[in-house]
Every structure is written in structure tokens, then in C-alpha cells.
């Protein structure tokens, strides 16, 4: 199983990184990492676009959703069933589904391996048609050593994580509605949501300080592209709604 993932994910990713490294003038590994992140993000874009789009159309369904929530306040099963039927009738589903999330996990582990093992290996296992640069220069932008951890990069990533989550929560159903419902469950969710907003960035900083900077640069770039992607899809779909 591990060998299988090594062949279909780890090796192509490492080779793509080396290709970027070879092509970029000045051979800056930092820029190569950013390019690799962009390629991965573009490959996964169709999956995320679909879910962001249906979030938008779901906002219009909010009144009906609230009605159903009130109607079946004490019957979780019935409520879920009615909600799913409502989505089906309107041909929307805000949930992105489970499989893409499961697919992303091996990709994440492979990227982790690429930066943890691939960069430090003495001989790069590149395909025969790619020229082997021998050793990779791990200095990015002339100042950042990608092989060792960097607290500053970890803190920047933590801040960006907060920005990303904040952008997300403003798109969630408004808090007033949650409070009006008065249900215990939802209130607890709201508090947990508030805590999560600070927990995730804090965790990012703490874990980030122990990881090699190359991996953190990937994390940072990936967050940045996620924020841009959200802004882009929302801008495009809200334009469509205002000028039909």
C-alpha cells in the first residue's frame, strides 16, 4: 500500500518539484514549492468550486431551512430527512462529499514526505527524462533555510489560518438565527466554533515551529490560494446573481 502511494503520488510530486527547480532562473526552491502548491490547488479546484457555489445558492433557501428546523426541533432524524429532501427538490447540496477529503489525505502525507525526506536525500530519485540537479539548494529567497524550522514562518502561517477561518465563518449562516433557535446544541456549537477560530491558528503555530520551513511554505501558499479561491468564486457567483 505504501509502495503504491509512493509510485502514484510521492514520486510524481518530487519530480514535479525538481522540474520547477530546474526551470526557474536562479534555481530557487522556495519559488518551486509555491508553483507546486499552485498546481495541486488547480487540480483540486473543480472539487472545491462546486461546494462553494452551492453554498451561495443555499443562502436563498435559508428561510425554508429555518422553518424545517423549528418544525422538527426535537426530532433530529426527521429534521435531517426533511432537510435532505429540500436540497434534493432545489437541486443543491452544500456538502462537498467525503471522497475528496479522503483523496486529499494521501496527497498531504506525500507532500509531507517530499519535504521531509525528498529534500534531504543525497541522491534524488528522479525519472530518467528529467535532469538531476544533484543537490538542491535549500536556501529560499536568499534568507530562508527550507530544511530547518522557522518560528517566524510558523507565526505568519498561524495568522493566515485565522484570516482564512474568519473568511469562512462570515459565509456561514448568521449567528442571530442560531441564537434565536435557543437550542442547546446549537449554542454549544457556536461557542465551540468561537474557540476553534483561535485553536486552529494556535495549533498551526505550535506544530509549524517543529516542521521544516519547506513544508510550512507549502502550508502558507496553500492557505493563501484557498483564500483567493474563496474570494474569486464568491465574486463571480454574486455577479451572476445581481445581473441575471
Amino acid at each position, binding site marked *: 500500500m505504501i509502495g503504491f502511494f509512493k509510485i502514484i503520488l510521492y514520486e510524481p510530486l518530487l519530480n514535479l518539484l525538481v522540474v520547477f527547480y530546474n526551470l526557474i532562473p536562479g534555481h530557487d526552491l522556495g519559488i518551486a514549492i509555491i508553483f507546486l502548491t499552485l498546481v495541486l490547488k488547480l487540480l483540486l479546484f473543480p472539487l472545491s468550486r462546486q461546494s462553494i457555489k452551492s*453554498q451561495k445558492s443555499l443562502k436563498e433557501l435559508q428561510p425554508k431551512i429555518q422553518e424545517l428546523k423549528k418544525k422538527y426541533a426535537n426530532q433530529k432524524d426527521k429534521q*435531517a430527512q426533511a432537510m*435532505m429532501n429540500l436540497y434534493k427538490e432545489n437541486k443543491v*447540496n452544500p456538502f462537498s*462529499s*467525503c*471522497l*475528496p477529503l479522503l483523496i486529499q489525505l494521501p496527497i498531504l502525507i506525500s507532500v509531507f514526505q517530499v519535504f521531509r525526506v525528498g529534500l534531504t536525500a543525497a541522491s534524488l530519485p528522479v525519472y530518467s527524462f528529467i535532469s538531476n540537479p544533484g543537490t538542491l539548494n535549500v536556501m529560499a529567497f536568499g534568507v530562508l533555510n527550507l530544511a530547518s524550522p522557522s518560528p517566524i514562518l510558523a507565526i505568519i502561517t498561524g495568522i493566515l489560518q485565522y484570516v482564512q477561518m474568519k473568511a469562512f465563518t462570515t459565509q456561514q449562516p448568521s449567528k442571530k438565527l442560531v441564537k434565536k433557535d435557543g437550542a442547546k446544541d446549537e449554542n454549544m*456549537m457556536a461557542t*465551540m466554533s468561537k474557540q476553534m477560530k483561535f485553536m486552529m491558528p494556535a495549533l498551526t503555530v505550535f506544530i509549524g515551529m517543529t516542521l521544516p520551513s519547506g513544508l510550512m511554505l507549502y502550508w502558507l501558499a496553500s492557505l493563501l490560494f484557498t483564500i483567493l479561491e474563496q474570494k474569486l468564486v464568491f465574486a463571480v457567483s454574486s455577479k451572476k446573481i445581481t445581473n441575471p
Partner: protein
Amino acid sequence: MKQIFIWPRLLVLQLIRFYQKTFSPDHGPFSLIHPWKGTCKFRPTCSEYAYDAINKYGLLKGGIKALKRIFRCNPWSKGGWDPA
């Protein structure tokens, strides 16, 4: 004797509950980083479905049903109400 065969099933059921409380993007704390608080398109969610299916049909048959469900939970499916 038959009692012994139920142990693996109980263990897996407990593991599913543990997963739901920790890493699950639908039930655990990570559900909150997703807009609409979850990712699964179906209700019951995939992990709930797996729990019910294994409880009802046993580890092998229920497990296969749960796996099929996870593959059904892809971007091209409609989702919806789908109990075990």
C-alpha cells in the same frame, strides 16, 4: 462460543465513535472549519451509516456496505436521505 465473534464488531463500533469525536469533519470539532458544519452529502452521515450498517449486518457485510457508501459520497452524486 458465538459471543467471541461479536468482539471485533464491538471494537470497530467503538473505533467509529472515537473517530466521530475526534477527526470526523462531520461530528467532531473539525466540523466547524467547514462551512455548513460538515462535509458528508448524505444523512445519516457516512460514519453514522457505517455504525448502523455494521451493527445491523455484521462486520463483513456491513463493512462492505459502508465502503460502498463512502464511494457513493463523491462530488457527482446527489446525496440525500439514505439510512442503512
